[in-house]
């Protein structure tokens, strides 16, 4: 009898796939499967590693600030504000208060847009495409508002070391308030669509659980940590920009549901609560917006000369929509470029939480669990399933189909 040799398919370990709608950059999961259950989960990121830190250590601080802005296409202000804050602390540059407020306002608008984007993606992963269209239509409003205020939809280019580059003038306030009213209405609608829907509850309740103890040990950040009951939010813990001036509370799911379960549903609740919170913060900040200049050092050449003369190390942090972002910067006197620059993005901290979330769940739940931390590594184009004898690659279409079929099965069961 002839034995057939099964060869491992080549190329699964280093793949750069097309963008997956759930995950915006490439990552590979390797899962040990028993039937439909995930026995063991592992992930391999790095397919989109661009060596940004290497590049930044070969550019002057202003160039690096713009480079930092381009680390992420969703968090357009997150990395530039973190890098600027680190440099400002080293050079002891006091940012004018008006600039602090404008930074915070744009940061909150970014949170609204990012969470709405996520809500749409999550709905799509569940096969709930009408909610996906609704969330993304609502999101267009905040994108338009960001364009109106900063000139750009994505990379706002509003941050400069020592302040901001554009003002928000009283003539613009009515347009902002109009959008805030629109989001209040949209929040009520989205909350009803997501939270009261039986199918969403059946797919997301007790799915992808991260317990409070696991969350404490694995150190996730942002909504992923808060949905597991970890009260951690840079805006509250570590006052910066204008956040020290307004009243902000940690948004944990028990504020709405009365309990913390740490599942996918709780992560939806947390993000929706944060959209509502951001509307309130924008209103408070606009009402308190102080007068004054926008930049501590308006001329870039003067700024560069000052930065060339300082030495030291500092950390700049910001609460991005996905959680804490941290930039470590070290400057040396006489050098234009940073001696060291370490970027810690929020998903960097959230990766490890995937493993306890996925283990014990079904293959069809992978898309929603992977999406539930709102990964900014993004983009599983395929998942490798390791069964004892065969190795099989599942494409994103296949995975999405499995997820939609599970939702349909649940709905068919409900109809009976």
């Amino acid at each position, binding site marked *: 009898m002839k034995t057939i040799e099964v060869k491992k398919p080549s190329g699964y*370990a*280093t793949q750069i796939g097309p963008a997956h709608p759930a995950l915006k950059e490439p990552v590979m999961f390797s899962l040990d499967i028993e039937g439909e259950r995930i026995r063991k989960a592992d992930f391999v*990121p*790095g397919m989109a*590693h661009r*060596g940004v*830190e*290497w590049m930044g250590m070969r550019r002057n601080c202003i160039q690096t600030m713009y480079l930092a802005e381009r680390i992420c296409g969703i968090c357009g202000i997150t990395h530039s504000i973190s890098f600027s804050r680190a440099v400002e*602390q080293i050079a002891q540059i006091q*940012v004018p*208060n008006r600039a*602090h407020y404008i930074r915070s306002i744009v940061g909150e608008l970014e949170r609204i847009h990012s969470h709405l984007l996520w809500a749409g993606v999550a709905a799509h992963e569940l096969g709930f495409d009408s909610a996906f269209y609704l969330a993304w239509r609502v999101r267009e409003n905040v994108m338009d508002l960001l364009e109106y205020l900063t000139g750009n939809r994505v990379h706002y280019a509003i941050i400069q070391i020592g302040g901001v580059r554009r003002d928000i003038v009283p003539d613009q306030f009515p347009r902002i308030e109009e959008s805030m009213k629109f989001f209040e209405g949209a929040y009520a609608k989205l909350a009803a669509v997501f939270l009261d829907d039986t199918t969403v509850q059946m797919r997301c309740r007790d799915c992808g659980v991260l317990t409070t103890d696991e969350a*404490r*040990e*694995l*150190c*996730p*950040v942002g909504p992923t940590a808060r949905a597991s009951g*970890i*009260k*951690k939010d840079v805006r*509250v*813990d*570590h*006052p*910066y*920009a*204008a*956040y*020290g*001036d307004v009243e902000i509370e*940690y948004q944990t799911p028990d504020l709405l549901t009365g309990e913390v379960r740490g599942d996918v549903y709780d992560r939806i609740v947390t993000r929706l609560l944060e959209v509502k919170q951001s509307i309130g913060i924008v209103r408070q900040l606009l009402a*308190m917006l*102080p007068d004054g200049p926008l930049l501590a050092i308006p001329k870039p050449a003067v700024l560069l000369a000052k930065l060339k003369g300082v030495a030291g*190390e500092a*950390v700049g*942090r910001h609460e991005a929509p996905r959680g*804490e972002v*941290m930039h*470590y910067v*070290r400057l040396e006197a006489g050098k234009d470029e940073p*001696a*060291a620059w*370490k970027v*810690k993005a929020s998903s*960097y*901290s959230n*990766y*490890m939480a995937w493993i306890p979330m996925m283990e014990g769940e079904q293959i069809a739940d992978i898309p929603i669990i992977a999406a539930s931390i709102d990964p900014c590594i993004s983009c599983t184009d395929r998942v490798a399933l390791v069964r004892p004898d065969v190795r099989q690659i599942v494409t994103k279409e296949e995975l999405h189909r499995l997820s939609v079929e599970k939702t349909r099965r649940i709905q068919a069961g409900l109809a009976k």
Partner: protein
Amino acid sequence: MNLLTPQQIAEVLQTAAGAGFVSARCAEWAEGVKGRKSKQVWLKIARESLIPTLKRLVEIQYPHVSVIAFCDTGAQVDLMYHFHVYWGIPHEEVLVTLTVSLDKTDLKVPTITGIIPGALTSEREKQEMLGIEVVDIPDGRRLFLPEDFPAGVYPWRKDETGIPPDMVKDLWATGRENLRFNDNPPPPDPAPVNPANPVNPV
């Protein structure tokens, strides 16, 4: 909970570091109209004191590990362990940074994943990017670098083990391999003129 001030935290950790203590610095930074201060403690310690100091920090509050930052200073590689304590208490969080300097002749550091499992991502990254050996790391595989990345090249080092120039891709040159720096691309061929209608090409 009785909160320690940053100065007290620095003193407590200095005692825990014992002979390995090098220096300590407390910093504050205020932003906004109310000028609420964010608090920081920066400690320099020897490698041998890392685990005892961290164990003492855990007694203050189970810390959140943010990231391990780095700096290649020439003869040494500095590792900055960034922790937060007192998170969950509005405006009271303290950023505690433990700096450990390693000689390039002996780039070894003990793992802290036995105390905080969440540090694994950062430790794996430091191994591949800086060529540091994290002793007893539970999972020593590469994280971000591909499997076929050459051994002995460490992207964040600034010495001869860093990225060599031939590994750097000049994206601007893609598709223009025959051009040198200051050459302009050749002009496109002029479109043939239609004699009957000189305005529109053939």
